[in-house]
């Protein structure tokens, strides 16, 4: 009687131990995976000007960067006391629908002090503020950030391009969408004065 009870106890202890160790292992593995995925990649691929970069929803070709106080493509001179830091790029919408989600595409690393948080995007074809970009139709875009006139002008900037991944069904609404923004490439550009260009 006593030996049977002892054996049962041992069995239950063994199974509990197995479950516990297995559970802990699974927990550890998923935690490690989460950490690994959340880490930025150690070395970002270095892109060159004129080279197409695949950033999920967008294909990007960075052309040039400039710093000037000349009027913007639509003729606007910017708020008084600011100059414009601009990046020219070709954008192609690789997704299946029209989109204007371009504000978070480019960021500066190291950050530039005094820079406005979000750029204004201009469609150079029209010399007007960019609306949506249609799927598969590449366009030349100029993104413009405000920089205070007094701020020291950097000679070169390092631009980090953020890409997203497509999910056919997201976790909330089971709808398709673009998620998990991550830096995909970096590019160093020299700043040159931008010639003024007015729209048609």
């Amino acid at each position: 009687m006593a030996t049977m009870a002892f054996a049962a106890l041992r069995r239950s202890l063994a199974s509990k131990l197995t479950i516990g160790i297995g559970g802990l292992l699974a927990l550890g593995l998923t935690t490690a995976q989460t950490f690994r995925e959340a880490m930025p990649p150690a070395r970002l691929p270095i892109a060159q000007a004129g080279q197409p970069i695949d950033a999920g929803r967008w294909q990007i070709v960075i052309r040039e960067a400039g710093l000037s106080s000349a009027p913007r493509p639509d003729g606007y001179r910017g708020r008084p006391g600011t100059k414009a830091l601009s990046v020219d790029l070709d954008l192609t919408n690789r997704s299946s629908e029209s989109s204007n989600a371009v504000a978070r595409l480019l960021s500066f690393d190291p950050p530039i002090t005094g820079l406005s948080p979000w750029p204004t995007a201009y469609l150079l074809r029209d010399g007007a503020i960019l609306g949506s970009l249609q799927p598969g139709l590449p366009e030349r875009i100029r993104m413009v950030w405000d920089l205070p006139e007094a701020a020291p002008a950097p000679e070169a900037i390092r631009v980090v391009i953020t890409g997203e991944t497509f999910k056919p069904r997201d976790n909330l609404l089971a709808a398709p969408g673009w998620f998990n923004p991550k830096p995909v490439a970096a590019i160093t550009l020299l700043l040159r004065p931008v010639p003024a260009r007015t729209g048609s």
Partner: protein
Amino acid sequence: MIRFLARAAALAIAALILFALQQTTPGYSEITGPITQRGVAGTAITGRGFTLRVEKVVLAERLRWQAFGRSYDRDTGGLWAVAVVEAEGTPATTALSGATWLAASGLRFEASQRAESARGFLRGKRLEPGLPQRGLLIFEIGRDAARRGALLVSEARWPRLDTQLRIALPDDRIEQAETLDLDTLK
């Protein structure tokens, strides 16, 4: 042995059925998505809140129009597709915020904001009941999206549990033009 095989087969069939059910379950966004109402260009189609008739579609390389005392001239990397439509709100005043060109390949081109200042631009304009209004839905589409496309029109830009007209565009309703002047479009 036979009993074992039968059990294994039953299990496999159950797994298959469950897999099929899982794969074909519509997602939340599909269940609560737009309610499609099909139609064809040339006939008036009545949805929950509006009636719409597509008269014709003109494909053009360039668009031209007058607005704000100046003339606009817009080219494109693809093609302009201008749909001439007649719409009215039924039974109450409404506006159409959702207009999309659905290509045969599945690409969705939303009505272009580049031509918003054109006078006939219908998207977002007030539509009164009993006063049918002619207007334009203007799209910028890829060259290979021009044929066998369809128009998706709805009151909301992203309709949920609401009518979305899906209007097929047969070839005899499509015209071609080199430069299209929106002010003279009849």
